């Protein structure tokens, strides 16, 4: 099969080295234009920041104009697992400094899905969480906040 061929194994290793250099802080393989690769890596971070902003608008909004830069700094050596997990991982890492709306967005998501930080999130049947100003309650996919002023 194809995978056994040496040329293909070499290609696989070269592709992985490039992806790690662009997303995980790995060394840049020899021969590439460093400036060009860097510009491309920055463009990917800006794109990821935009996708997170669409998936979790309150999270991005709480950083205002600094959002793309703040996200890019945090994500620079963290390869993506999709925009939902980018958003979720970022929100958990910044839990202490989230504003009220972003904290609520995180808490509501956590009542609806189970996420261990390692594997894809799974829907919860039921959950209760404290949120800013009240309690969020979710049963069979319907979330409600009680006592929020």
């Amino acid at each position, binding site marked *: 099969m194809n995978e056994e061929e040496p040329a*293909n194994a070499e290609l696989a290793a070269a*592709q992985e080295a*490039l992806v790690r250099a662009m997303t995980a802080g790995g060394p840049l393989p020899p*021969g*590439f234009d460093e400036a060009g*690769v860097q510009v491309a890596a920055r463009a990917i*971070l800006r*794109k990821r920041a935009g996708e997170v902003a669409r998936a979790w608008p309150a999270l991005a909004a709480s950083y205002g104009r600094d959002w793309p830069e703040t996200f890019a700094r945090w994500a620079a050596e963290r390869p993506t697992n999709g925009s939902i997990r980018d958003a979720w991982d970022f929100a958990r890492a910044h839990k202490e400094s989230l504003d009220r709306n972003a904290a609520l967005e995180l808490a509501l998501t956590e009542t609806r899905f189970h996420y261990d930080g390692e594997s894809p999130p799974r829907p919860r049947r039921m959950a209760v969480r404290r949120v800013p100003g009240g309690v969020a309650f979710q049963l069979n996919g319907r979330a409600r906040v009680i006592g929020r002023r």
Partner: protein
Amino acid sequence: MSLGVGIGWRPEIAGFVKELPGLRFTEVIAESVHEGHPPADLLALRDRGVQVVPHGVKLSLGGAEPVAAERVAHLAWCAESLNAPLVSEHVAFVRAGGVEAGHLLPVPRTRASLDALTANIRRTQAELPVPLAVEPIAALFDWPDAEYEEGDFLTELVERTGALLLLDIANVYANARNRGEDPAALLDRLPLERVAYCHVAGGDEHGGRYHDTHTAPVPDDVLALVKELCARQRPPGFLLERDGRYPPAAELRAELDAIASAAAMESIT
């Protein structure tokens, strides 16, 4: 097959797309369509006879690893349920060794890379009920030690696989501008009779390079290149890609009209 001028279907502009009186052709990001609940607006377009092309972005045809069977199956499902005339994907890879790049990355222009692409395109074609068109990407850098010029690499790829080309005019423009080359020169080296349709979009300048972001109006230089292409061989369709910073409807209509005029095709607005 004639497609005419179209626009990429996105949830944010679904209302605008639905109201276009002359629309015969659109495209949807395949990974955004959920098998349980495809968007009703999109199904309505299909039922009205609009040709809907599923456009994949995460298959990684250019990866050294074989394409994932479930991703190919989803493309096939999209083609069946949207009654698509064809499916499109990219000459690119998006992951390697289990690490996601987050975007389309260029492949090396080598024999080994051509072999990997050929194998993956054939695996995909074997499962699809319709033809596959492959799209060369906008690259902000190239791999070292290329064994082929871009035109020769793509020509050999379509000859080997029988795939069609999705030619992105904005990518041709971006690559030529960033490499300091003449964009029309690439048109002369591609098998233009194999172009299924073209993408057109606008971008912006960042860090000294032109980025094909799909968030800006189509530049005049790209429209001029549409004319250049049509003077050589008019493709069946041109599709406007817009992905964010959606302008007011009047501006989008003006862009569609500008593309129709450059391509000497019927206005759809």
